[in-house]
């Protein structure tokens, strides 16, 4: 397997863009990523797009085809991949494989999304019967995504004594990271009092402790060693790259499921843990080598729980790390220096690619206003509904 390098990274701003077609968001991100590495569409050997269930893709999830139809039609292969909110990581891993195998020298991976307003609802196309988890979840009990995160947060309070103030401090920290990040949608610092005074969406989680939904698009250009050599030091090696599904016996109540079959000794959120472990193995590095993390902070629960689940801390230890400033920019293990989902809002299928762009901007020292100093190894982790996990490690 050949080495693969991240050559270019680009993103459309995150926000609400009702008059910009989804394919235009994608074009913007790809254009920025190609400019970033001085390449053009003529160099591109393949496109992998994360497929959305909300809109675009000609209604068939053919997002990569739609982009080519609006940009550059010259016969290159397109791959459209599903994976819900982890689809961006799966697109990245697919593009990685296309380059590593020698099929292509230069591949673009892209995710673009325009999100419906409010709670993410049941998408069209499901089977409305008694065997469909998502249907039971919505029709039978109206369990929103924040309700799932809230139950995890409540359980953490029971298991580890995490206080409402500690959860609020996690929100304060992540929002503070975004203040200096020109790309973030929400750049206002907040206080513990403001977090706790914001509406209680699903007890114990307040509005400022869960992520909003956004429109956005992100893209990366991956290339072989040949292209990387031409680019010099700005090319970043993809040290680890893995996708995974869950393990039987995972105790997590996975969105959109209405049950789990917990078994002793099986990790919670195992799809993400499995992906991260494989990424570590591929990179041949350990936890101490990772300089910062970008994780899927759909809520403050993830900010505390995921570093523990991924093996960076013991269960319950993240509370103290947060209190000590270890998870902040400048701390021992910065978590979401970008401002995370809490400050961007989630543009589902684009989100994992934005995480990877952030890894690149940080490692190159281009994260103006929220830079982690001297970062050499960076790791992302993302979760997609239906038990999809993805994790990428970039190395300077």
């Amino acid at each position, binding site marked *: 397997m050949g080495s693969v390098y991240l050559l270019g990274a680009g993103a459309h701003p995150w926000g609400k863009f009702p008059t910009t077609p989804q394919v235009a968001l994608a074009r913007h991100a790809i254009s920025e990523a190609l400019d970033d590495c001085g390449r053009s569409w003529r160099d591109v050997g393949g496109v992998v797009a994360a497929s959305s269930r909300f809109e675009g893709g000609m209604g068939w999830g053919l997002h990569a085809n739609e982009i080519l139809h609006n940009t550059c039609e010259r016969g290159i292969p397109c791959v459209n991949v599903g994976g819900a909110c982890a689809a961006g990581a799966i697109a990245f891993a697919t593009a990685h494989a296309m380059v590593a195998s020698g099929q292509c020298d230069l591949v673009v991976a892209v995710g673009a999304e325009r999100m419906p307003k409010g709670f993410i609802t049941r998408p069209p196309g499901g089977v409305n019967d008694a065997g469909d988890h998502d249907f039971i979840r919505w029709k*039978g009990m109206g369990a929103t995504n924040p*309700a799932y995160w809230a139950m995890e947060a409540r359980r953490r309070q029971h298991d580890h004594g995490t206080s409402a103030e500690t959860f609020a401090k996690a929100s304060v920290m992540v929002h503070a990271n975004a203040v200096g990040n020109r790309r973030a949608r929400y750049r206002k610092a907040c206080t513990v009092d403001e977090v706790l005074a914001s509406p209680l969406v*699903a007890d114990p989680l307040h509005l400022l402790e869960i992520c909003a939904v956004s429109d956005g698009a992100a893209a990366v250009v991956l290339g072989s060693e040949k292209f990387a050599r031409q680019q010099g030091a700005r090319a970043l090696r993809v040290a680890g790259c893995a996708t995974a599904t869950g393990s039987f016996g995972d105790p997590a109540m996975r969105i959109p499921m209405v049950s789990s*079959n917990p078994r002793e000794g099986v990790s919670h959120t195992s799809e993400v843990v499995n992906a991260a472990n494989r990424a570590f193995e591929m990179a041949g590095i350990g936890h101490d080598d990772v300089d910062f993390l970008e994780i899927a902070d759909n809520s403050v629960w993830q900010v505390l729980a995921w570093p523990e689940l991924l093996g960076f801390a013991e269960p319950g230890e993240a509370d103290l790390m947060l209190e000590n400033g270890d998870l902040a920019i400048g701390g021992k293990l910065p978590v979401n220096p970008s401002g995370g989902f809490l400050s961007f809002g989630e543009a589902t299928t684009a989100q994992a690619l934005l995480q990877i762009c952030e890894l690149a901007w940080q490692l190159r020292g281009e994260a103006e206003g929220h830079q982690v100093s001297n970062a050499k190894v960076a790791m992302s982790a993302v979760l997609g509904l239906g038990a999809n996990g993805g994790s990428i490690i970039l190395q300077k």
Partner: protein
Amino acid sequence: MLTGRPVIDGLFTDGPEGPALLGSRCATCDELYFPQVIGCRNPDCAGTAIEPAPLPRTGVLFSYTWQGYQPPAPFKVENWNPYAIGMVDLGGLRILSRLDVPREVLSIGLPVSLAFDEMASGEDGGVHGYTFTAAEKV
């Protein structure tokens, strides 16, 4: 016996002790699933026979939340008010359910039992859904 219509056809069954949620049991490894499945996902089990199985009607509250915003369609109840949703341990199976438990009584470890409530009224008996209530009245 329940009157009217279930919120989802085929979600409930008549168990030995009264109406129950309908799941599946793997005839080989005995794993219990909810909702019904067409195959067993235990990687250590090569069994192919799946049987319908009523779920236990009592359990223990593993965690819960109080949902403060009205969920979007297709959820529909008359006279909506904020309400609790929780994870209930039924032996080796954990399921998600609405809870009919007063907010001040909600606590992890609370023994709970299955109940059915009317989500919508109607001359034909209305629509009933499932919930869990405190097993001992408080």
